[in-house]
């Protein structure tokens, strides 16, 4: 059963990692990915909007799919929303397994699917005062497609 959180606050990587492994001696590897806000093209800030209720369900479904595909001993997904500055973390994916490949592959799978299957939208603010909605990218669809459906 994955731990899912959708929150404004930052997350604690070390604490989340400990929670996946504390008291266990059957975990051989923990993989993680942190997505971070970049300051491309004079970006000042990014605001993430989401669909409360559906977001948690969608992420739980994605995590359940990862747990169906790989023998995970634990899985954590924390996705932030609200206004974030360059350098701030946006999303954390953590996977634990007996075997390194299961943890690494499930981690890559989760972040690819979150990109295209979790109901978040990003609005970017730039130094020149303009704002724009981030458009979905064909390469993210391709990254999702490589895992099959």
């Amino acid at each position, binding site marked *: 059963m994955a731990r899912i959180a959708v929150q404004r606050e930052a997350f604690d990587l070390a604490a989340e990692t400990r929670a996946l492994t504390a008291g266990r001696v059957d975990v051989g590897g923990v993989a993680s990915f942190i997505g971070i806000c970049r300051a491309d093209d004079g970006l000042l800030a990014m605001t993430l909007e989401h*669909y409360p209720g559906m977001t948690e*369900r969608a992420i739980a479904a994605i995590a359940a799919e990862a747990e169906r595909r790989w023998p995970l001993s634990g899985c954590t997904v924390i996705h932030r929303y609200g206004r974030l500055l360059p350098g701030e973390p*946006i*999303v954390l994916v953590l996977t634990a397994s007996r075997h390194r490949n299961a943890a690494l592959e499930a981690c890559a799978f989760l972040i690819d699917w979150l990109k295209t299957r979790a*109901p978040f939208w990003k609005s970017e603010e730039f130094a020149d005062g303009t704002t724009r*909605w981030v458009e979905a990218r064909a390469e*993210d669809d391709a990254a999702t497609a490589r895992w099959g459906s």
Partner: protein
Amino acid sequence: MRVLYFAWVRQKVGLAEEEVSPPPEVRDVASLMRWLAARSPGHAEAFANPAQIRAAVNQEFAGHAAAVAPGDEVAFFPPVTGG
């Protein structure tokens, strides 16, 4: 029926959500979009290009042919950009 809007769909409509009572012939997502488009200039602009719009019915992603019924929660938004 509760209708929710997100991202630029929300901005164009000018509302985050509204309660609507479409007529019985509105049975799927596509016909609901056409019916909503007639509610205001903002709605019309938001739904001008239905191919750009994604939907969820009762918090599950749904195609434009998916059925909708009174009591459903239906959401409209651009393609998602999570992660």
